[in-house]
């Protein structure tokens, strides 16, 4: 436990309080939904695998549990990837999608959905197979990522890279617009539905694969906390400190693309969490040390994602709100309030 010895209160928060909050929210999340299931039955289903009604057991095991776990992965992944991007670019407005990952994914999905009939024609159905969307989205992100990585080997300056990422995003966005123009209403609707983002579409098989990517992404992130701390000062300083900036940058980009790309592929682009959670965490923990921030951001991301998803359910109401609307509606005012009450975020980037 030497990891946190520098500050006992931070250790207490990260290792005790946040996980306890997560556990409570997780159980709360699973026990709420459109169908009201008594709490004892929820517990029974979770721990013994049986319930009074078989449909309740199925709802908990195949609807609510995968969704809660997806929220868990998405919160951690988007939070951490946002943190990495903000540090790499030393820009508080950076988020997991600045490198064009979501635009690339959108382009991939748009190509498959919107050109479905005319060009590819490999699908007989309008409703797409989940895996097709996942693969298309991953390929889209990956291509944009390769482009950005090639550029990142050539340019010394992260700001240039940021602009290049934004430009790739614009190109992909424009290509999607052109595709939308040429596709019919039904296909557009399918594409739009994907862009709304959703945590609820994953079955257990998909969840396993997503989990694999996210764990690797998080591991890379954890081992690169030292370069991240050094990069916070300035790239030139990092160089004089003996840091291989290019190597560090590639590691960080790789981790981000696994995290943000994975979530985008499986859940669609989910807004706000990646931008806001790092700020919230820095303000709450009052530190910019990535040794603390990486686990704290991951845990805070989980908390916020679970909370938003719980709100989106609106218990015993028959329908659900789009997750993107909820994350922004709830998250944005909280961030504004925190930033104003703490006198700005300027301090976040200096130790």
């Amino acid at each position: 436990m030497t990891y946190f010895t520098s500050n006992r209160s931070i250790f207490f928060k990260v290792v005790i309080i946040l996980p306890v909050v997560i556990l409570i929210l997780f159980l709360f999340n699973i026990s709420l939904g459109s169908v009201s299931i008594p709490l004892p039955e929820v517990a029974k289903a979770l721990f013994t695998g049986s319930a009074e009604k078989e449909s309740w057991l199925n709802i908990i095991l195949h609807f609510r549990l995968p969704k809660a776990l997806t929220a868990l992965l998405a919160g951690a992944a988007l939070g951490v990837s946002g943190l990495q991007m903000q540090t790499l670019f030393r820009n508080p407005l950076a988020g997991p999608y600045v490198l064009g990952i979501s635009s690339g994914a959108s382009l991939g999905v748009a190509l498959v959905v919107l050109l479905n009939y005319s060009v590819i024609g490999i699908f007989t159905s309008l409703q797409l197979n989940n895996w097709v969307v996942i693969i298309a989205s991953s390929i889209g992100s990956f291509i944009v990522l390769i482009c950005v990585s090639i550029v990142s080997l050539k340019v010394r300056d992260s700001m240039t890279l940021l602009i290049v990422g934004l430009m790739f995003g614009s190109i992909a966005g424009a290509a999607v617009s052109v595709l939308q123009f040429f596709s019919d209403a039904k296909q557009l609707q399918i594409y739009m539905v994907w862009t709304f983002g959703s945590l609820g579409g994953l079955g257990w098989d998909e969840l396993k694969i997503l989990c694999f990517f996210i764990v690797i992404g998080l591991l890379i992130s954890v081992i690169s906390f030292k370069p991240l701390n050094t990069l916070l000062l300035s790239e030139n300083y990092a160089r004089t400190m003996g840091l291989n900036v290019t190597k560090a940058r590639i590691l960080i980009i790789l981790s981000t693309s696994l995290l943000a790309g994975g979530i985008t592929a499986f859940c669609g682009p989910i807004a706000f969490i990646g931008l806001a959670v790092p700020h919230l965490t820095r303000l709450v923990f009052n530190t910019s040390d990535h040794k603390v921030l990486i686990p704290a951001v991951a845990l805070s991301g989980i908390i916020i994602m679970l909370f938003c998803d719980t709100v989106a359910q609106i218990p015993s109401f028959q329908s659900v709100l789009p997750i993107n609307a909820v994350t922004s509606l709830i998250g944005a005012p909280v961030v504004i309030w925190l930033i104003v009450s703490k006198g700005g975020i300027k301090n976040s980037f200096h130790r």
Partner: protein
Amino acid sequence: MKKVSLTVFFPALLMIASCNSDQKEAVNKPSEQAETALVSLNYAEKLKIDHVQNISIVQITEPFKGAETSLTYYLIPKDQEVPDSLRSTRIIRTPVEKFACTSTTHLPGLTLLNTESTLVGFPSLALVSAPSITTRIEAGEVAELGKDYSLNTEVVLEVDPELLMTFTMDGNYKHLSPLSKAGIATIVNADYLETTPLGRAEWIKLFGALFQKTEMADSVFISIESEYNRVKDLLSTVEKKPTTFNGMDYNGVWYMPGGNSWMAKFLSDAGADYLWKENTETGSIELSFEAVYDRAVEADIWLNVHGFNTLSELEAADERYSKFKAYETGMVFNSNARANENGGDDYYEAGFSRPDLVLKDLAKIFHPEIMAEHDLYFYKQLK
């Protein structure tokens, strides 16, 4: 974002566009004295047609969902002068000889009245199913007017139809103003807002008025109506009504037809027990997957899994679909038996104007023993 600015626009447009009530009275007044024929519309709620001295007054009472102002059109025969009192109203000269429309659901208005030869333009020609129209398309007699909502105004101007039939989801008529300036009449069709199958089919009478085929339209409708009611009566006495539900999940939202919707009416007429029949919505309701699962897990029949042809495709899209009883028993049906390779589907063309055929299909699905002689037309069972 574009949509928002347009909806801001629309009240102003509507005010300009809405009819002048004085002029309407001018025509209506004599009608009270002289006995006038009123085309009887028994089912349609969004359409009114009056006949005053050879002039048909067509009123679209709800041009789009939630519209507060109706639209009135004066259909004046070509051999008759336009009365001065109507000069600044919306006038359509009949019979329409060069016609263009914007939805496949408008096309049966032509095929049922044998007026296909008037069609000169349509957007998304590839989606058309009716053979009598596709032959005209192949012969190059129908111009491609653009893609869906984005009507290519220049092509419309070049084709120069006498009347363009369109529809609007949000009261935006802005794209039509260059057309009316060029003298192309337009008419808004709101048949999709009807809440009963026969109400929707009754819009054939609007086409009857436009093409001066009133009697033919009436007789076409009467035969559809009597066939529909015959099947409905046949089913009204069935004792066991299979439970059913509809549609599928779109990224966490399951669109289920409301209890007062067009589809719900079909289901109740077809002798089915629709699981959301107690709902009062006329459109669709948005449900979560688990809410649908909870209620419909034991349902007998599952309808309208859009776009799917096989059960394995359905399971591949989401494994949770396979947990419904209807999936296990293979009682899943889809209305795409007549879909074409370009993404067009006759169900979305002829289906709305032939509720008798749709009802027979549904009756066959729910009560095959009663409908032994009928073969599924629009629907098919997933393999």
